[in-house]
């Protein structure tokens, strides 16, 4: 039987959702038998591969690299899961939206509060530009499944992934599956 190609990506978030994914503990061994982990912060793969079946997207869209990567992911992936509150609502990363454009935040962080050699980060090709607005993933691309929670706990993650392994759509309802925060 052909293995399902699973990917996870880490955009603007704290990686707590990935830590929660690792909280699946022994079930990860069962999962490893059924899926091929083709891209992940856990697996050291540089380029996002073609023909991915499922991708768990953690984090909001906050800079040019996030934006570029998420569009590439949409083109190459069958089913995209908005994974965690940062992806579903933009959550804590979006708190800078209330402060105005990215320039305001950059100046505050790197110039006003820069103790030693205050300067704006400027390295094209290495440091991606910040977007003026941090967006949840579904504002940028079409998302197939939503998994809120900060982070979603391991039971919720398993309840969402297990049906996907059988080619079924998980039922996302009730406090166990859709409570924010």
């Amino acid at each position, binding site marked *: 039987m052909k293995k399902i190609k699973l990917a996870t990506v880490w955009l603007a978030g704290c990686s707590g959702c990935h830590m929660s994914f690792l909280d699946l503990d022994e079930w990860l061994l069962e999962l490893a038998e059924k899926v091929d982990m083709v891209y992940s912060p856990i697996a050291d793969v540089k380029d996002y591969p073609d023909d991915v079946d499922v991708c768990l997207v953690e984090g909001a869209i906050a800079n040019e690299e996030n934006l570029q990567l998420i569009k590439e992911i949409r083109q190459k992936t069958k089913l995209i899961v*908005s994974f965690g*509150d940062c992806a*579903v*609502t*933009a*959550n*804590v990363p*979006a*708190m800078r*939206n*209330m402060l105005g454009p990215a320039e305001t935040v950059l100046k505050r962080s790197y110039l006003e509060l820069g103790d030693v050699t205050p300067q704006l980060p400027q390295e094209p090709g290495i440091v991606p530009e910040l977007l003026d*607005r941090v967006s*949840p993933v*579904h*504002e940028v691309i079409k*998302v197939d499944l*939503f*998994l*809120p929670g*900060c982070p979603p706990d391991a039971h919720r993650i398993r309840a969402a992934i297990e049906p996907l392994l059988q080619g079924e759509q998980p039922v*996302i*309802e*009730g*406090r166990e*599956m*859709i*409570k*924010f*925060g």
Partner: protein
Amino acid sequence: MVVKTLIINNQLLTASEDQTILEAAKDAGIDIPTLCHLDGVSDVGACRLCLVEIEGSSKLQPACVTQVQEGMVIQTETEKLQTYRRMAVELLFAEGNHVCAVCVVNGNCQLQDVAVRVGMDHSRFPYQFPQRKVDLSHPQFGMDHNRCILCTRCVRVCDEIEGAHVWDVASRGGQSFIVSGINQPWGDVNACTSCGKCVDACPTGAIFRKGSTVAEMNHDPEKIRFLVTAREQKEWTR
């Protein structure tokens, strides 16, 4: 007292003529979601969550402010109602700054509960990220307008139960906000008795007790009902 007969979700019921649809449904064990409704305080129908379909009318009616009528035929769980309720909750999340992960009432929030109830897993509407203020001038409590959903529970409880009327709604339309003492900082309002009823009445973390950290704060809306019962029925035991 006159009794009316009506049908809710194909159940034949009787209700007193002074009851609202919400009260009649509750007595019959039918759950209609609410958010701005608070037992013990008058109703305003602000949140539009308790909308119901009444046969013969093309409009949806808020159950909390609609009196029962003889022969009414009501549906509370149609697909149209589910759609509107979910839309209303998504809009509430989209128009404020609800960062549940770092909120004092995370896990004890009625807005969160209602989101679960209507099956909201995300907001289809773009988040607005408005610039809103935080008032920390009161020695015991704080008001975070980012979390306020304008249900006006605090306005009603302060006016009707405490009798101080510290809170009201200022400005118009999308710019509306809850104001203290006709635009004074909360701590400067002489009328405020620091009773904390608005803190208990608030369904979200908008009005909170200082010193609370993430997921630590619990509101006690049952206290409001208890106070009203105590005054009206002389039942002083909780």
